């Protein structure tokens, strides 16, 4: 305890007046960082989410370019090379009962699955966002009627709606997207409605309104930018659900029909021949699982980055 006893003598020459001017006080040190910059900074520090994003990009590239990496085609049937086991020198993922290269088929199937998922997600988000925003923005009686309608729709099992749509329309890429999109938009609509209702109560909205902003300006300048990040998060969770659902419908035979491939159709084929040729199931299944896992992880990361308050 020596230090506490020591005497410090203060002399004027130890001090120096601070030179300040009113200009300095106003200067901002460091570049200003916007909402997206801030989100990107947070996302970058999340290694799991970045890895997931990288794997998604890799899968996208392979889905687009995969078939060109081999000298084979996904549809060419060569009957003297049936059921080749996967090898590094020959067929990377083996061949199926018609001698088609599984590597090519898996990536073409991934492409179809992701294409359907993208279409379905676009419908889901487009319809859901418009519906939810209109319902919340105009409020009152219209909101009440629109919400009762959604309540009834939510009560109908998704599976039933999707199966019926697939039965009535011809199975194909567009009908699959419609079936998936038609069943998913209600939750997006509820999400957007909740957010718009909350925004409507906030001061900046009231301020803009009292300054005379019209409907168009309020929606374009205040609502859409503030809802946008929610849409991005919803997107990340909708894509894997759509991939999942497409695979499910194709698995029970209501989706993509042979000889076309999708992940679900390939998994269905593989499951039937799994006993002798397990690789026919394992490769498409692995790609499907990788897609769903990584979209979810990236979605979690984006949620944390874009909306730190929601962090769990």
């Amino acid at each position: 305890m020596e230090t506490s006893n020591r005497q410090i003598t203060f002399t004027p020459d130890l001090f120096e007046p601070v030179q300040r001017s009113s200009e300095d006080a106003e200067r901002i040190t460091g570049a200003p960082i916007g909402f997206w910059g801030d989100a990107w900074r947070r996302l970058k520090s999340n290694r799991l989410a970045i890895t997931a994003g990288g794997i998604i990009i890799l899968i996208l590239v392979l889905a687009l370019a995969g078939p060109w990496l081999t000298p084979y085609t996904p549809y060419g049937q060569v009957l003297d090379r049936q059921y080749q086991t996967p090898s590094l020198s020959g067929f990377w993922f083996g061949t199926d009962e018609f001698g088609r290269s599984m590597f090519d088929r898996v990536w073409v199937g991934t492409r179809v699955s992701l294409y359907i998922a993208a279409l379905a997600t676009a419908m889901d988000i487009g319809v859901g966002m418009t519906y939810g925003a209109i319902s919340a923005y105009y409020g009152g009686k219209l909101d009440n009627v629109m919400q009762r309608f959604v309540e009834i729709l939510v009560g109908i099992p998704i599976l039933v709606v999707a199966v019926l749509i697939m039965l009535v329309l011809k199975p194909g890429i567009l009908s699959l997207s419609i079936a998936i999109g038609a069943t998913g938009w209600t939750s997006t609509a509820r999400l957007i409605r909740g957010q718009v209702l909350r925004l409507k109560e906030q001061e900046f909205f009231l301020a803009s309104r009292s300054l005379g902003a019209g409907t168009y300006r309020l929606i374009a300048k205040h609502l859409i930018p503030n809802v946008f990040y929610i849409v991005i998060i919803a997107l990340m969770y909708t894509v894997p659900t759509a991939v999942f659902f497409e695979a499910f419908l194709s698995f029970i035979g209501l989706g993509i029909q042979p000889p076309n491939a999708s992940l679900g159709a390939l998994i269905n084929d593989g499951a039937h021949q799994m006993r002798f040729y397990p690789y026919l199931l394992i490769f498409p299944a692995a790609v499907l699982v990788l897609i769903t896992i990584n979209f979810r992880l990236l979605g979690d990361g984006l949620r944390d980055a874009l909306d730190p308050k929601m962090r769990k």
Partner: protein
Amino acid sequence: MLKYTLKRLLNAFVVLFIVATATWFLMQFLPGTPIRNAQKLTPEQRAQVEAQYNLDEPLPVQYALYMTDMARGDLGDSYLYGGRPVTSIILERLPVSAFLGTQAVVIGLVVGLLLGIISALKQNSIWDSGAAFLAVLGVSIPDFVLAPLAQYWLALKLGIFPIAFFESWWHSVLPSLVLSTSIAAVVATFTRTEMLEVLGQDYVTLARSKGLSRVAVVVRHVLRNSMIPIVTIMVPLTAALITGTLIVGTVFSVPGIGEQFVRSIFDKDFPVIMGTTMLFAVFFVASYLIQDILYGIIDPRIRVAGPRE
């Protein structure tokens, strides 16, 4: 509370009526005729078959007949299986699905709760990351991938379980396990989030500073309050069961209701498709109804305003 319950009940019937009507009319758009060998039949035979199933009546009459029969609990006769009543087909297959489903829910709840509690109490530890990883895997691996893989490795290669069919209790274990994975994953994630929220509440700090043991705090204060919102996952659980038994039933050849649904779709057996669709809808609507009523009991604020979000 009574008024609220009645309102929800009315809503449920409206939903069921809409499902029934929409499904019935959509069926009329389906391509093909339900009569087998239609070309080979003489006009008289054809008329006889059509008369048997009321197909000779105009559409609105057919619809009215079907709806009144359904209100009486008669779902019509199957086009296949020698005109067996749809209700008897459903009653034969429902117990199998119900048994599989209940067993799966019990396994899923127990495993999910354990995983969730462990990861919440040991937040940010290796246990937490491990449980989180398992939960992501459980949600991301669909049943139609897991079921064939489990069948291949656990049944065929290792021979622990029977490969397929439904002859003894042992036959039900593997399908139930496959079904339970997604349930366990959802329950685990949910329990963790809820518990972490409750653990941060003031009354938990108070209970601790009062000198209660850790176990007592967790069991009496944290768990009890985290369990309330578990009601929220009732509907996803039911939905998972409906779609789940469908896949698992098809892969493991379990004579459940889901397997019948898939089969009827390919057989174009409209009365059976219609009947099973209505059964699924009733399940679904009932689970929503129970959830809403439970909410009303648990959280008095909801009774007045109705559930939000």
